[in-house]
């Protein structure tokens, strides 16, 4: 396999490896050497060489499925070259400019609210009216608090102090819902139970007299958290705050997974875990492109149940849904999907920003259908209100 315009197989393979690296593959020097070894014994069968390199270079399903495209792109200069956002030629985004869909979410100037399209069921209008009145009257919403000093700017959006605050809170929250489920015991000095086998084993050296006592206890196993964040139009005031919260959670809690939904569902865990916060947020906004219309939680959950649920949900998983519950799809659908979800997950928490308002009652059909399946239903519209539910979650 020799690529046109290069000096030799070593250059080619090195080039290919760095091409893969720039697309998120973690490959070391050893892989390059092995690839060369593999290719030395080749007999010019391209399809087999490709399969060999595939087995050698890939490490998970995502890489496995993107490998063929990357291979073609490098060796035949076909298709797209990179998948990272800087060089994504497919989108019209040239710089860090916000895509239109997101300008609503991130724009906090008040005139944006007039353009906001209240969606969905008839009573939404009432609520939206109520929302604006409330906002002025109580100043309870986080969005208004920041109006004076923020413009549409991603750097503002990723204010390190706020992120740090959100991370701290998210971590505390995750700690609070950590629970012990396992029946298995582990060796532990401060344990409650005697570990007979190990005690006898360690006292063999004393001729069987019991001197050294070994104990065991049930270890604390971290709970896994899956967050589903609603980013539809009706949630725009809270998106900024919730995204920070989700970022905090995913970065602080190793066993977590994050998804955005609107009319579609996207997994964003890897994007959010990016060390570069600005890049992470820009990627997020690019990923959310093509979103439009109202919330279709039922359908998104269906997709989730069919694909991600098997991988992400275990009996130790807590699912957190952040949504206002204004659903376009049928309530019946939502109900069955939540039922499905509950079968796999340990606990379902629904955080609704509207619940923090006076006079709000979860009367929409979707909310009514969902309520019986929710283990904990709480308000969440500011960091303070989120912190307030921490002790309650710990009690669950």
């Amino acid at each position: 396999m020799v690529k046109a315009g290069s000096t030799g197989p070593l250059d080619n393979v090195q080039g290919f490896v760095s091409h893969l690296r720039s697309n998120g593959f973690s490959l070391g020097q050893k892989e390059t050497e092995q690839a060369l070894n593999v290719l030395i014994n080749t007999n010019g069968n391209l399809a087999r060489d490709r399969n060999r390199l595939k087995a050698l270079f890939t490490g998970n399903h995502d890489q496995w499925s993107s490998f063929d495209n990357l291979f073609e792109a490098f060796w035949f200069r076909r298709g797209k070259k990179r998948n990272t956002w800087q060089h994504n030629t497919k989108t019209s985004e040239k710089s860090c400019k916000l895509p239109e869909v997101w300008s609503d979410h991130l724009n906090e100037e008040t005139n944006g609210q007039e353009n906001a399209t209240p969606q969905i069921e008839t009573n939404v209008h009432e609520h939206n009216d109520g929302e604006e009145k409330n906002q002025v009257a109580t100043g309870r919403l986080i969005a208004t608090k920041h109006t004076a000093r923020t413009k549409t700017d991603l750097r503002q959006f990723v204010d390190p102090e706020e992120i740090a605050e959100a991370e701290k809170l998210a971590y505390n929250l995750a700690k609070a819902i950590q629970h012990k489920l396992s029946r298995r015991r582990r060796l532990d000095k401060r344990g409650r139970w005697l570990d007979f086998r190990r005690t006898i084993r360690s006292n063999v050296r004393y001729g069987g007299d019991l001197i050294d006592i070994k104990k065991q206890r049930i270890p604390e196993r971290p709970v896994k958290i899956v967050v589903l964040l609603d980013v539809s139009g009706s949630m725009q005031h809270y998106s900024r705050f919730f995204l920070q919260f989700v970022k905090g959670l995913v970065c602080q809690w190793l066993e977590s997974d994050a998804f955005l939904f609107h009319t579609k569902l996207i997994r964003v865990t890897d994007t959010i875990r990016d060390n570069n916060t600005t890049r992470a947020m820009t990627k997020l906004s690019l990923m959310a492109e093509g979103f439009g219309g109202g919330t279709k939680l039922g359908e998104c959950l269906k997709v989730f149940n069919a694909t991600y649920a098997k991988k992400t949900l275990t009996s130790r998983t807590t699912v957190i849904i952040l949504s206002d519950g204004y659903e376009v799809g049928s309530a019946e659908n939502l109900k069955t999907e939540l039922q499905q979800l509950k079968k796999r997950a340990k606990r379902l928490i629904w955080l609704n920003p509207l619940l923090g308002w006076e006079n709000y009652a979860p009367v929409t059909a979707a909310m009514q259908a969902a309520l019986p399946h929710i283990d904990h239903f709480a308000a969440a519209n500011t960091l303070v209100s989120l912190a307030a539910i921490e002790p309650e979650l710990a009690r669950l």
Partner: protein
Amino acid sequence: MYQTIKTRLSGVGYIADDSLTTAIELALDLARPLLLEGEAGVGKTEVAKSLAKILDTNLIRLQCYEGLDVANAIYEWNYQKQLLAIKISESRSSPAEGIEDQIFSEKYLLTRPLLQAVRQENPPVLLIDEIDRADMEFEAYLLEILSDYQITVPELGTIKATSVPHVILTSNGTRELSDALRRRCLYSYVDFPEPEIEREIILARLPEIEIQLADQIARFVSGLRREDLEKLPGMAETLDWAHALYGMKITSIDQDFGKLQQTLICLLKTERDLKSVTPEVTSRLAGKAA
């Protein structure tokens, strides 16, 4: 080498596609572990079993589970026996050094799968099944064994592998594996087989069945996998179903829809799935496949 592996695998009833065959070949060539991922029921475990058959060697299986520890995976001392030996030697008042050498000898060592695997004369196939169920700590311990093929027993010293085992790891993806582990392995994703390959598998496992029926079964199942199901039927389910149809002397699946509907319990494993595949759906799928 490539062709021989492919034909020999099919000789023992395992039909592999090109990428999997290449991965197995490469794993044997480079003596590196092979990590297989994929949905439950696509035949990941079967790869190891078939490989052991064609290499004519032992298959050593380590089934991972939450809480799996060194004592259950590598080695453990037989404490009861050690204690007995001590008590007996006390009554005879024999010298202490002698007892020590005696009780920390091979005789008192209980070998578990991983230690067994590195001490075999012939390189065995070591199957580490569902590695994603084991804890992170165990995964870290596995790294030493997979990169150096040696195990340290404090009382005996380091045991080097007499032969390097062929290691196959499988994962259902219930947990993300660490990058360190992934880097030490070759990787292959096993998907549900194409209808043509599935037909070959049915024929390989159930040679008495007619080709036409095998073909229909393969296409019916592949159609069924596209339906909205909770649990997609795997290869094992397909084979069960083929056995059932063969046993009921059905020669074509569009023959008797009533009977066909009854046999679907071989393929569908949850109540919701059974309800969602109505006789209409069955007849539609059967009509397409026939």
